[in-house]
């Protein structure tokens, strides 16, 4: 997991981004090592995109240190961007050009020769399964296909690090799984991934290591498994009620579970043995409308750390 030489590809210390009075990124520290898949997990407005834009050299650092490939974004933007592959949150494809033209023109921005690009384009279209659509305009493609094209495009310069800002936001579940599969393959090929997401399943699927961000700060760091172990229990019992929801849960749950989280639409009970806990509740005579026992997720970690859910 650590880099071969210990020199991080991206290094941030006390990194700050302010827009006037608003503090978007509030003194964060992190390092990205070669070959790892690293994620920023947090709700909208947590400062994830601002961090990505600073790394992509399109947003000046307000304060603190940021080094990308050991270079300073304020001075070496051209060199840094030449080695990054950026998948922005909003697509920047040209809808009227064909799939292939979009790739070739983007490659030309990097100064790659046309002959080389022809071959590269074929390989990339193959990889994202768009070979049949190569000569179609982008406009009528589905959202998932456009995202795959954006991913292919970001790979045209054979980047050392891919910056993926909310790579599957707005896609339907099936399209998301296809995108995840492609990203997973890239990860196995040794491409370093840096992604932001507010989907905990995305972070769990793709990230070796992640930081949880909230209001511009990093509130926790670790692998998905470590975070769940540290900040949650093994299992969660979700209770839903019709109108007979009890006011005070401690009477029902004392001694049965380690923590109770009361949300507007449901109650979450944190315990290492969900079945035992729900059995215990039943014995004490609590009858919710529904009971669901599931494993803890990063959503629970986030809830525990911030008192709020990831997707509002």
């Amino acid at each position: 997991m650590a880099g071969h030489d210990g020199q991080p590809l991206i290094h941030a210390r006390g990194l700050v981004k302010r827009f006037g009075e608003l503090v978007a990124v509030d003194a964060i520290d992190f390092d990205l090592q070669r070959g790892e898949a690293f994620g920023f997990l947090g709700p909208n407005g947590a400062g994830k995109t601002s961090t990505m834009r600073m790394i992509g050299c399109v947003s000046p650092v307000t304060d603190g240190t940021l080094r990308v490939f050991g270079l300073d974004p304020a001075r070496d933007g051209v060199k840094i961007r030449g080695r990054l592959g950026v998948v922005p949150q909003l697509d920047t494809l040209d809808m009227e050009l064909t799939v292939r033209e979009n790739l070739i023109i983007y490659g030309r921005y990097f100064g790659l020769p046309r002959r080389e690009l022809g071959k590269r384009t074929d390989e990339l279209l193959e990889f994202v399964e768009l070979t049949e659509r190569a000569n179609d305009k982008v406009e009528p493609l589905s959202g998932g296909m456009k995202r795959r094209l954006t991913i292919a495009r970001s790979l045209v310069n054979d980047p050392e690090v891919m910056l993926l800002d909310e790579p599957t936001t707005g896609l339907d579940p099936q399209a998301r799984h296809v995108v995840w599969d492609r990203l997973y393959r890239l990860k196995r090929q040794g491409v370093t991934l840096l992604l932001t997401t507010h989907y905990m399943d995305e972070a769990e699927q793709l990230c070796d290591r992640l930081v949880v961000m909230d209001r511009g700060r990093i509130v926790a760091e670790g692998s998905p498994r470590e975070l769940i172990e540290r900040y949650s229990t093994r299992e969660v019992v979700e209770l839903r009620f019709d109108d007979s929801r009890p006011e005070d849960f401690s009477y029902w749950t004392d001694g049965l579970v380690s923590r109770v989280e009361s949300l507007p639409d449901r109650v979450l009970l944190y315990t290492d043995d969900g079945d035992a806990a729900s059995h215990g509740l039943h014995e004490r005579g609590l009858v919710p409308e529904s009971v669901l026992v599931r494993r803890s997720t990063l959503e629970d970690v986030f809830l525990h750390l911030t008192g709020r859910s990831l997707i509002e």
Partner: protein
Amino acid sequence: MNTFVLAARPLEFFFAQYRRVWRGTAVSSVATPVFFLLALGVGLGVFVDRATDLPGDVSYLEFVAPGLLAAAAMQVASFESSWPVLAAIKWTRQYHAMLATPLRVSDVLFGHQAFIATRLFMTAVVYLVVITAFGAVASPLAILTVPVAVLVGLSFSAPLAAWGAKTELETSFVAIFRFVILPLFLFSGVFFPITELPTALQWFAHLTPLWHGVDLCRQLTLGDVALWSVLVHVLFLVAWTAVCLALALRSYRRRLIR
């Protein structure tokens, strides 16, 4: 050197985009001067020539043709630098795609303006051929109206790009076309000498790039060139364009890098 290499890269995008519409613009770049010259030079010109003596004893056709050429450059450049700039910032977001690559803000701006300059060059060549065919050109110096037209165009595309990157109000371009571009077209000496205007407006005309462009083109096609006045016109247009490009670079930076 490096700057030119990088700024040339966005050109490929704009030309790929242009390939979709080139037939339409090719037809209109021939049809527009033909219509204008038929209506004004030939049609209206008969009445004008019967009633008045234009300075230098030229026909109205010869008088109006170089003005129309300069005005066409203004119109093409203004159009190319209005909605396409907004689109690249807000809708197709192509500027953002460019800035995710080694290209810098200056490359994005100068690359787009270089494309507009190329479009202006093509438009001016066609216009010159048409007015020559109408017999409205008296001097081989007229060939120089092509680079002049490119410069006149840039003196409009640069400030409009500056405004486009600054404004959040996309409808403002409609107002600019109606209340800036159209009055300039009508009152900058294209259709009648500005000496017919009230003195205050004459002075005002001297401060607008179109008048300088019109007078310069007219001197060149008529072959009636006053060197000092050519110098003043060129200096004015170059300085105006340079200042506006600097302003455009500033508003591009503020809009795209934040």
